[in-house]
């Protein structure tokens, strides 16, 4: 048993050491426009490792062979890891413009829309780091107060400000955490998918049709079916194979 574990460990170590080489090879294939081979290698790397650049390159490769759904999926994955990367945002916006469905979210109050757009700019690590910096600032203030009266007049203001910032960022981190842990999103990878009222493959229960690249929220999965909801609130069941979970 020990030997098997050791062998697996060695294999995984070798595999992870080969990733830079694999990545270089995949990039080379992309450069000579052999996108299918590049996709195979990128997908292979992603089995053992994860990086926004690999997802980004995979998204490009899928786009080049015309698979918009898989391309959006890869860009969404990359965006999760690096939400402020301009290249990822640009390509995702470009590819999204090719999605056939126009699904408009309901109008939001300005402040909520602002909050949502703000939280999209950060990932969980960013928020954790920001909270760390606020705590660091408070600790520096504590040290200064112990040895000097320099901040004597500003203490009250600083305390309120840092408390407000700390609470805001803690809430955002919590919200982000709930979003990651509770919600599951996916992208439709088939050209046209019928959304049904129940997880049954019958003609009469088709509610509406969505197309490749549409982003959905996955609520429930059972025996090959996924219950999905669009951003405009439309809900139904589709085959799980037609959607790729982000």
């Amino acid at each position: 048993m020990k030997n098997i574990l050791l062998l697996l460990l060695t294999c995984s170590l070798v595999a992870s050491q080969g990733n830079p080489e694999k990545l270089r090879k995949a990039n080379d294939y992309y450069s000579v426009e052999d996108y299918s081979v590049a996709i195979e290698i990128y997908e292979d790397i992603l089995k053992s490792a994860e990086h926004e650049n690999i997802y980004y390159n995979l998204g490009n490769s899928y786009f080049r062979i015309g698979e918009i759904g898989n391309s959006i999926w890869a860009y969404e994955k990359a965006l999760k890891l690096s939400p402020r990367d301009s290249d990822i945002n640009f390509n995702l916006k470009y590819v999204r413009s090719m999605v056939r469905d126009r699904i408009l979210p309901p109008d939001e109050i300005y402040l909520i829309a602002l909050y949502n757009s703000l939280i999209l700019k950060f990932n969980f690590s960013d928020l954790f780091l920001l909270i760390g910096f606020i705590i660091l600032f408070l600790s520096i203030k504590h040290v200064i107060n112990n040895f000097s009266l320099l901040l004597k007049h500003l203490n009250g203001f600083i305390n309120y400000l840092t408390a407000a910032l700390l609470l805001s960022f803690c809430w955002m981190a919590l919200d982000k955490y709930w979003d990651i842990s509770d919600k599951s999103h996916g992208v439709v990878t088939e050209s046209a998918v019928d959304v049904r009222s129940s997880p049954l493959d019958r003609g009469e229960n088709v509610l509406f049709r969505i197309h490749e690249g549409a982003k959905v929220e996955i609520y429930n999965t059972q025996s090959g079916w996924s219950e999905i909801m669009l951003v405009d609130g439309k809900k139904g069941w589709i085959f799980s194979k037609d959607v790729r979970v982000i």
Partner: protein
Amino acid sequence: MLNRFKTSMLIIHIFSSLLFGQISVSASVDANKLSKSETFGFKITALNVDESPSVDIGPLSTAFKVISGPTQQTSIQWINGSMTSSRTLAWTLLPRKSGKINIPSLKVRVGANLFSTNPIGVFIDKDLGRAQVSNLFIEAKPNKETIYLGEQVTISYRLYTRNNLSVESIEYPKSVGFWSEDLLPARAARFNNTQINGINYKVATLFKSAMFPTQTGTLDISPMTAICNVETSSRKRGGVFNDPFFNSMFKETQRKFIESDTLSITVIPYPETPPADFTGAVGDFSINSRLDTSNANVNEAVTFYLTIKGTGNLNQFKINQLNFPQSMEVFPPKSSFSRDEFRDQITGEQKFEYILIPRQPGSFQLSPVSITFFNPIKKQFMTSKSKPLNLLVNDNGNRDIAYSGNRKEDINIIAEDIRFIKTNKIKTFSKSSPLSLWILSPYFISVALFLFPATLGRFTQIRSSNSEERISKNALRVALKDLNKKDSENLSHLSIIMYKYFKSKLFLSSENLDPRILENNLKGRISSDQLNRVISIANECDANRFSPLSSTSALKTRNDISAILIEIDKLF
């Protein structure tokens, strides 16, 4: 319930049939014998219908041209208590060919019902077509029938008539393979008198166009068509009123459609292979150039004028790339074209204005500019060349001025695409993205900083207590060392040594120790004998502090102090 509904519908139908009469659809024409240039009315009438009929008259388009329509008319009549309603669709048609033409049966839809109209035969008199020519026709006349590629052909369209008329509308000729320019824009026809074969006509030029072929072969120019309202004498009048005087008072207007013949122009290629610098100019041209000044300073603008004059397809060809000296900044030229409008040939001049900015001083010669064109009269390629121009550029100290004056333009987006892949090296390939050390570092530093003041205080406290103990431990050694020094023969000095020992040993804070304080602190901690000895030594030292003492006494006191301190030190 259903049966009752059906019965009531049947009763309503029978009643309405009695009241409104039979539904029928028919087609009719207002004349079935006419000339090729005459229009006629075509009607489709639907009787006793509630909805407007709709019909596709596509089948008519091969034999007839629709001049106007459809117009819609509705009428209701009551005759002997019976109501007749009719809805009529009417068109004005013009025959495209002569002979007997059959207007086929058309499918007419009224509501949900489909009806077929009756076919109608119409006879179009062939002879009346162009024979009417003698009275009214359009003549299309090109000035040449065979031309070279790019050579101008002028086509005039003239309207000949023997009656008074007004032109209602004109459809201008269309031609594929020609670039055309209007020489005489269409305007109200002005008639002049002329004679053809001894017959008087009124003639007006309707339109004149200069056409330049852009391809070789036989090219067709479609006919010009016009609709005219022609005044004619009433033909039905007779009897006493059949008199020229009365006839002049009773004129009627007839709507006539006329068209010119289709023209065929043969375009032939050039008789010899065009030279390499030939850019398509056909005609007779001359070129000249000039500068606004022949003496300029560095970085000052100079204008270079290039003028092409002549007759031909001006404005349709490009001039060859001009070569200016390398040290001159050249801005894109402004071009203008002016045409002589009163000639049938396109004659005029094309001007180009180049702004040059010399960036280096020196004497420059602007090379001559040439234009190669095909002259269709001489049937050969010819070249016109401008004269070389000299420009002296003086150095006025402005050479350091940066290049300026470039017009900025918005970037034209030619196409959009995704951005390229990221090929930079990845430092860490991790399956999950754990909170890395540097993300956690602010927390570690914060904890350290929060604890720092308390830790520092504790450290200081510990350090200070250790120091007192160390001093206390070494008190005897320090005292004995001080006592053994040569200058310790003074009693005041000896008392200080003793007090210093007790201060260190007993952690006393008071600086001004005296025998009483010492007694209070030592009582109970040492034996009474030892206490008495210490107090007596202290009193002795205090009493004789300022009196001289023999060296023997001082030595004795010093030994006593040493003895008692050693003794007491063992107790602590």
